[in-house]
């Protein structure tokens, strides 16, 4: 009998909900959630993170891209991305099962 192989876990690839409505006005980024009937105001970093949540990138890859975009330390960005991940999850902005 072959011993059970440990499951290979792939990192989650967060994917924002397709029904969210986005508007960028000057330095403000608005997201309207038609299910919860609620609008969120995001800062530039959170808005970029949400934009990168398209189902093709892991959180690590997103952190790397954000660090590159803002030319800041990757370690610092990773903490921001983790916090934003929790924020997005609480707000229900990601497709079910894609946020990790």
């Amino acid at each position, binding site marked *: 009998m072959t011993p059970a192989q440990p499951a290979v876990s792939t990192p989650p690839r967060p994917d924002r909900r397709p029904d969210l409505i986005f508007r960028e006005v000057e330095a*403000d980024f*608005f997201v*309207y959630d038609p299910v919860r009937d609620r*609008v969120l*105001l995001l800062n530039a970093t959170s808005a970029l993170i949400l934009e990168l949540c398209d189902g093709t990138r892991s959180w690590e890859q997103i952190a790397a891209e954000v660090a590159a975009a803002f030319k800041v330390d990757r370690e610092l960005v990773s903490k921001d991305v983790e916090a934003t991940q929790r924020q997005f999850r609480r707000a229900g902005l990601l497709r079910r099962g894609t946020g990790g």
Partner: protein
Amino acid sequence: MNRVENRSGGYLSLRLLEHRIGILGDDEALLERLARCFEPGTGEATRETGDTQLTVRLSHASPDGSADERRLGVTTDPAGALDALVGPGPRSPLDLTRALVQWAVDHTRHYVFHAAALRRDGKGILLPADSYSGKSTLAAALGQRGFALLSDEVGAIDPRNGRLIAFPRALSLRRDVLPVLGLSDSLGASFDRGASRMVRANELGLERAESGADASLIVIPTFEAGSATRMLRLGTGPAVLALMHASCSQRRFKAAGLDLVIDLARRLPCYELRFSKLWEAVDRIETVFENLDDRCAGEP
């Protein structure tokens, strides 16, 4: 015009936004009580093809007691139009008024905020706020300073041109507020055991605006006992969030609604007002209004 006619019973005709609502009943006293919840005028909205007409037929669910205590059985055409708004079973005149207002708001092509609205010199002020924030009181007080009242509760904007539209419900004022306005606390009609009163604009000596106004100023009031009067200009982001919080229409308008709200927040000066002294608050609003840049007003 709102009217109660004595035919075979009574008939009350209302125009709420673009809707014509006909109410038929067998008790003229009850219809009069219902009519007291609305202004005699009908607002400026005109009926257009495809607009809904609602007919409400009233009957007594329990014929004993005073006109307020008697409960109304309600049937509507289209059938069941008001059921979801107040639940099944009999209703009081005030229940029915609330349901009619909610029905009109739910079915209008206008974008509606939970807000008072007033006009002066063709310019409109929108006062969006939660219940018990003082917007009806502020609306009445601003009315005494020469603003014409569009509504103390339903701030409706025509999305085609940004104009505020009149909504002819009578003002709902707490009884203890009336003396602060220099008025008798027995003014108007009493409902809900007398804690609040439905008062028509002319009973308060106010002008009721029949035509609309260009939205020109947004003030978000909060009554806070003991607080100093503070008026803080909001940036676009907080203004959008505050307007969305007061929106009654966003769920239906979706992207178009978000665009309309963002446009209002960008185009119009928007202030947060905290107050405990009514007339200080009115002075502050009036000062801001008088110093409005005319470029803020007008069509989007």
